[in-house]
């Protein structure tokens, strides 16, 4: 009972504290541009959770963030820091588009979706397998290799979309491929009229399934047991018969595959083509999501929802304050969550001691 209450307080208090800090910081910024905080916050809420369209947009952004957030957290669980989420996400999206273009238009929808999603996951996986092998085989630090591979992947994709001879692939004068012929995912708007127009689509469901699968994998499988052991204490894992190098490779592959999966949100669910730059920033925000979500799939989901709300909210309040305010707030929130979590735990402990004394 007491332990439960402590755990609840431990999980809920930091975000609440962070929110308060962010509110104060936000007030200062809003006042500095001569607007009323109450009005701005009201607008922010109305533009996000206040109407189905806005909420749909929030869900759309949540979907990508869940994937990149899981990507980072799988790596961290194995003691690896994957900062290449952006390139991996882009690679997944591009592969999904290629698959969707290659399939005949007559492909049954479920099959098309399956093939395109698999393409995204595999392409993402490959982009993670490389730094995984570089780490396991050559001891090349994954922070460097993922940063470097990020540039390489983005350069390759940029080339494919702008310079490669690909009349069948790309649309001239744009930065996107032709529309896929198969594999399109239904949007929520097609199913629930209120969501009409919003980009939210069934990828959200796939991302949630991926999150649940990640939870199961981490905590309920032998491979997850090994992976976490490697992340916590590689020497003990090795002692326990775990092939540490193989786990690194596997973890990087899965991590990047999850980022790659995120590519279907834009490509299969929203625009139905790959567009250069669709992944910009999502990889980086994924780091924040994973860390604020404390590397648990549930935490990642909630953190994604939060950051997505902030991002969509920034658009909604753009008429009153510059959108850069949201950038600032994002930083403040992450700092506040990070700083308050250990602090809250300490205060709880102190309180308990006084109570028992």
């Amino acid at each position, binding site marked *: 009972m007491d332990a439960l209450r402590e755990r609840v307080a431990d999980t809920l208090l930091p975000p609440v504290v962070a929110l308060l800090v962010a509110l104060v910081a936000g007030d200062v*910024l809003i006042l*500095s*541009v001569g607007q009323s905080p109450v009005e701005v916050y009201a607008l922010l809420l109305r533009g996000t959770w206040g109407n189905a369209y806005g909420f749909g947009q929030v869900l759309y952004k949540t979907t990508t963030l869940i994937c990149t957030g899981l990507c980072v957290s799988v790596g961290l669980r194995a003691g690896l*820091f994957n*900062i290449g989420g952006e390139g991996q996400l882009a690679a997944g999206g591009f592969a999904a588009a290629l698959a969707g273009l290659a399939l005949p238009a007559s492909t049954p929808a479920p099959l098309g979706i399956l093939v395109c999603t698999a393409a995204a996951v595999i392409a993402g996986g490959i982009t993670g397998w490389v730094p995984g092998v*570089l780490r396991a*085989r*050559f*001891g*090349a*630090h994954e*922070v*460097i*290799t993922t*940063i*470097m*591979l990020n*540039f*390489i992947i983005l*350069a*390759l994709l*940029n*080339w494919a979309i702008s*310079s490669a001879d690909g009349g069948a692939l790309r649309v001239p004068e744009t930065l996107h491929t032709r529309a896929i012929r198969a594999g399109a995912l239904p949007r929520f708007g097609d199913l629930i009229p209120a969501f009409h127009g919003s980009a939210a689509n069934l990828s959200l469901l796939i991302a949630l399934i991926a999150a649940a699968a990640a939870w199961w994998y981490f905590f309920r499988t032998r491979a997850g047991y090994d992976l976490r052991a490697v992340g916590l204490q590689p020497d003990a894992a090795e002692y326990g018969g775990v092939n540490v190098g193989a786990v690194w490779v596997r973890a990087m592959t899965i991590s990047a595959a999850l980022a790659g999966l995120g590519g279907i949100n834009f490509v299969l669910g929203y625009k139905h083509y790959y567009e250069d730059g669709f992944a910009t920033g999502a990889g*980086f925000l994924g*780091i*924040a999501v994973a*860390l*604020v979500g404390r590397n648990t799939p549930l935490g990642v989901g909630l953190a994604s929802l939060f950051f997505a709300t902030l991002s969509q909210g920034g658009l909604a309040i753009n008429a009153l304050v*510059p959108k*850069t*305010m*949201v*950038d*600032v*707030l*994002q*930083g*403040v*929130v*992450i*700092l506040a*969550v*990070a*700083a*308050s*979590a*250990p*602090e809250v735990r300490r205060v709880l402990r102190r309180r308990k001691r006084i109570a028992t004394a």
Partner: protein
Amino acid sequence: MSIFAFAAQTIRIAVPYLFAAAGGTLAERSGIISLTLEGFMLTGAFCAALGSYYGGNSWVGVACGMGGGLVFGLLHGVVTIRYRADQVVSGVAINLLAIGVTRFFLHLAFGSSSNSPRVPGFSTVVRGEGMLAGMLPDPLIALGLFAVPAVAWAIYRTPFGLRVRAVGEFPQAAESVGVHVARVRYVAVALSGVLAALGGTYLALDQHQFTDNMSAGRGYIALAAMIFGNWDPVRGGLACLLFAAAETLQIQLQGTQAIPSQFVQMIPYVLTIVALAGMVGKSTPPAALGKSD
């Protein structure tokens, strides 16, 4: 292109890396992860431009740039040392914050989302082919080259450096002999902020202008160089020069139409990976790196 010009360009490109990598090494040797270099650099660039503009003098800009780095360095310090926040989280937040804050105040100070007006800077008019001469008037270049041996000296030859190394390897041991672990880390991380910010200051003053996100990932390259140099300031400095040389090569090779520009632009990154996989073995970070508790 002459070897001189090649070297000169390499050094110019390397300056921000040198500053940031030197700063990063100092902080990481004390146990604080330096994912923040990018944010420090950007803040430094912005504050330098602001100071130079309102102070009307590039040295005011340098001072302000350092001040900006100091503030952000201390912020990172307070959050990770006092509040024991996860250092990676804080690093990500600092970088986001730097982008947001510089944009916000760019808007507020100069009414633009993309750049400041022209500000006093260092580079002066140099005619002719004397590219090397073109570097001399910029004291920040010399300072950047000097930063590496200076940090190496500080780390290996001073009492402070000994404490930094001890704190980064085994803080409990340092604490047990009365070394103030938090204080050492505060100083190290603040200095890393100042140094990385000098890298940004160089960018802004060399450019006579601040532009949105002008650090453009250089902080991460510096981080890579620091790891590549195995947390040794001198080797890290050499890695910076190596990365910069690869970039120079990339610039020189571009423009021949045979290869698409994207492939030429990959060169530095591919080289880094190949070098990392081939040359150095496992890198060993300071043992207490990233452990807030």
